[in-house]
C-alpha cells in the first residue's frame, strides 16, 4: 500500500480521510437542516418519516430525529476537530477522524438492516459514508506513523 503514502503535502491515505470528512460534513448539514425544518427535509428526501403521520410513522420519525440530534451535538463537533486536526497533521485529528468513521460505518449498516428504509437512502448512506469511511480508516492506519512524528 505504498501508493497510499506518496503525496507532496499529505499522503494519499490522508487525502482520502479528508475527502471522506467533507462528505460526512454534508450529512451533518442535512441533519441540521432536518432539525430546523423537518417537513421540508422529508419533502427533499433527506428524512423518511413525518411527525404528522400515524402513531407508527411518528415513532419512526422520533428515531430519525434522535439520530439527527446525536449527529449534531456529538458527531459534528468531533468531525470539526478531526478535520482541523488532520489538516494540521495532529495526532488528535487522527484519533477523532477514526471516531467519526466508526459512527459512519455503523449507521449505514443500521440503515441496511432496517426494514422501513428505502433503497435509495440505504445506497446513498453506504456509498457516500460507509465505504469512504472504511477507506478513510485504511488510509489513516497505513499512515499512522505520519501522526506519531507530528
Amino acid at each position, binding site marked *: 500500500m505504498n501508493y497510499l503514502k506518496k503525496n507532496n503535502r499529505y499522503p494519499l491515505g490522508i487525502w482520502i480521510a479528508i475527502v471522506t470528512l467533507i462528505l460526512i460534513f454534508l450529512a451533518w448539514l442535512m441533519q441540521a437542516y432536518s432539525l430546523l425544518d423537518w417537513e421540508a427535509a422529508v419533502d427533499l428526501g433527506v428524512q423518511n418519516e413525518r411527525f404528522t403521520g*400515524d*402513531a*407508527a410513522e411518528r*415513532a*419512526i420519525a*422520533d*428515531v430519525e*430525529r*434522535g*439520530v439527527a*440530534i*446525536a449527529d449534531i*451535538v*456529538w*458527531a459534528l463537533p*468531533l468531525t470539526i476537530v478531526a478535520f482541523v486536526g488532520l489538516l494540521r497533521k495532529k495526532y488528535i485529528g487522527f*484519533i477523532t477522524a*477514526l*471516531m*467519526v468513521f*466508526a*459512527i459512519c*460505518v*455503523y*449507521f449505514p*449498516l*443500521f*440503515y*441496511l*438492516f*432496517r*426494514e*422501513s428504509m428505502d433503497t435509495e437512502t440505504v445506497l446513498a448512506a453506504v456509498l457516500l459514508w460507509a465505504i469512504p469511511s472504511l477507506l478513510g480508516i485504511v488510509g489513516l492506519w497505513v499512515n499512522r506513523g505520519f501522526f506519531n512524528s507530528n
Partner: protein
Amino acid sequence: MIETTILTWIITIFGAITFFPLFGAQLVMIFNPKGQKAKDLIIGKGADWRDRTHFKSALAFAWADIIIILPLLILGTALVLSGQEWGYIIWISLGVLSIYFSILFWIMEKEYTYKLAGWLAYYTYFWGFFLYWGIGAIVFSTIQIINH
C-alpha cells in the same frame, strides 16, 4: 507497550458487564425476532404500534451491534490487555459510539423505558452504564495514549 493497570481491568470488566447482556439480547433478536423473548427483552411490552415500529429499529440495531460492536469490543479489549496502543484507539471509537447511542436513546426511548424500568434500572444497566463506560473508556484511553 502500554502498561495494564487496575483501571484497565475495571473498565474491561465494566465493559463486559455492560455490553454482554446486550449482545445476548441482540442474539435472541436476530435468531427469533418475532418471538416473545425478543419482544420482552428488546422491544418492550407496549402498544401494538410501538411493538411494530420498534421492531424495525431493534432488529437493525441488533445486526449492526453484532457485526460491528461485538468484534470491536473483543478485539479492542484483547489489544488493550496485551498493551497495544491500537486497543485504546478502538476503545475510544467504541466509547464514541456508546455515547452516541446514549444521546440517541435518551431522545427516542426515555419516555417509554424510564417508566417501564424505573430510575435505578434506567440510570444503570438499561441506559446509564453505556454512557458511563463510553466516557470512562475515552478518558482513560486518552490518558494512557498521552502518557505512553
